[in-house]
């Protein structure tokens, strides 16, 4: 049972909105979600706006505390209120977060100073920080910009700096909370490539929270969250083969899966699935040449 790196048991969270009326309005954001994540996994969490996917991330990174339910990170119960302050910060170090707006997570006026911010907070000796900062910046390909001012960088570059700032803290897991949503296609591609390299080469557990289907399709496993509940949980192939259910909750499958679904609807008998353009191409070639379906 302790094999899982992160275990979420029956998590619930309710947002309280007092707003303009005196009577508070309650918005349930999560409603009994259970989720297990293994070490080194590359997981995508899908859901439309307001589905509760970001709330889940904030619970795991201890920004919010669940109303009920338990979260264990590497066997430690992070919802335990008797947890000491040092233990809390150690858990924060192990769980890195990259947010949506790259501007609002950079602290310093110089790129390398910003990357050093995390390690400085951890009280790491100066020489070691210098080494970590250089390593992290070259890992995200920003070493040539280390003396630059963040506001002169593009969105994608800023996001890469923000990622370097997390890497320099040597986390076990990085949660990308819609980290590509505000970026242009080039920036998105770069950030996604870094995400995947961190997962494959450095063994860091990656959770990509997104509403881009093509991004989710690249993960090892997808969890679809809708109305605060887990709707689907499986490999991209499994999740995206259930096109009608996705449509029902206002989501779309990747275009390739949508095409196959549309062909099936039109009466064509297709037994296999395709979620990438390449897979779809191969499938169509096989179909057109009258081969195996």
């Amino acid at each position, binding site marked *: 049972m302790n094999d899982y790196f992160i275990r979420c048991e029956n998590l619930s969270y309710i947002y309280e909105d007092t707003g303009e009326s005196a009577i508070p309005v309650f918005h349930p954001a999560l409603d009994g979600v259970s989720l297990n994540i293994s070490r080194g996994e590359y997981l995508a969490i899908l859901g439309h706006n307001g589905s509760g996917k970001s709330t889940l991330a904030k619970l795991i990174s201890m920004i919010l505390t669940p109303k009920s339910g338990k979260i264990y990170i590497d066997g430690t119960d992070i919802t335990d209120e008797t947890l000491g302050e040092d233990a809390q910060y150690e858990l924060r170090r192990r769980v890195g977060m990259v*947010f949506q707006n790259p501007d609002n997570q950079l602290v310093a006026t*110089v790129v390398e100073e910003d990357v050093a911010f995390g390690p400085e907070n951890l009280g790491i000796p100066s020489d070691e920080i210098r080494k970590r900062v250089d390593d992290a910046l070259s890992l995200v390909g920003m070493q040539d910009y280390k003396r630059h001012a963040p506001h002169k960088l593009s969105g994608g570059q800023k996001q890469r700096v923000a990622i370097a700032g997390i890497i320099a803290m040597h986390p076990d897991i990085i949660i990308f909370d819609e980290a590509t949503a505000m970026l242009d296609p080039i920036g998105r591609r770069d950030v996604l490539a870094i995400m995947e390299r961190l997962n494959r080469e450095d063994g860091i557990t990656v959770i990509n929270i997104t509403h881009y289907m093509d991004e989710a399709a690249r993960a090892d496993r997808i969890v679809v969250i809708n109305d605060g509940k887990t709707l689907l949980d499986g490999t991209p192939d499994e999740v995206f083969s259930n096109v009608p259910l996705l449509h029902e909750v206002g989501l779309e499958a990747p275009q390739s899966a949508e095409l196959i679904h549309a062909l099936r609807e039109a009466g064509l008998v297709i037994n296999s699935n395709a979620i990438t353009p390449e897979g779809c191409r191969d499938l169509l070639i096989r179909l057109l040449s009258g081969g195996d379906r």
Partner: protein
Amino acid sequence: MISDITLGQFFPGSSILHRLDPRTKLLLSLLYIIGVFLLNTPMAFILYTLITLSLILASRISMRVILKGIKPIVIVLIFTMIINILLTSGEGEPLFSFLIFAVYKEGIIRAFFMAYRVIMLIVGSSVLLTYTTSPIALTDGLESLLSPLKLIKVPVHLFAMMMTIALRFIPTLIEETETIMNAQKSRGANFTEGSIIKRARALIPILVPLFVSSFKRAEELAVAMECRCYRGDVGRTKMNKLKYRLRDILWLTVGALLFAGLILLSVKSAELSALGEAMRILFYKI
């Protein structure tokens, strides 16, 4: 447009002044500023001018940049000079008079000294500090110099952090102001015509969204900082530790000596002999 404003006006470089520890430069500029108000004899003025010129040379900042730095205050300076010349009365005959004004020698000297002091103040402090020290080094230096105040519970680290974040977000907010202004302009807002009151009112639809978004930014930044384990200066280290080097000690010594020389040159000879007399009595008693 607005984004042309360069705050702090730091010019990156590798001159000896650039490489000095920011604390050294802060201390030296403190001496420099006190010095400019002490001097009152021609010899002191010459020494002071020489010090300023050598600082400019040491910073390798071009004269054009420095003159450009004075330009914004030229009108104010000329205006105060005229007021000084016209309104200062002196002993003896006025040099000349017209209308109700009489111009005395003292007035001219006073106006000249005043202008000299202001110009030296601006040139010296910008060469010593803002032109040659990056904002972050300046904040670090201030934090380190003020750190004794931590003993009496002054949150020095938080002030430095706030300053760093302010410097970081000024360009971002300027950019945002431009975006909001363009958005309002495209909907027919007019910021350049009408009475002052009308123009001030036109700014409200800019300031309100700017404030709202700043609060949102602040909240997001706070969350991001917390996720990066920020807990004030509890157990915090620095990547670039400030370190006094030999050159800093050298510069501070030379600075202190020049400052002493300046005092000696500025104290009138009568006061000097009185000082000497006092010393003699003191030593005699011992």
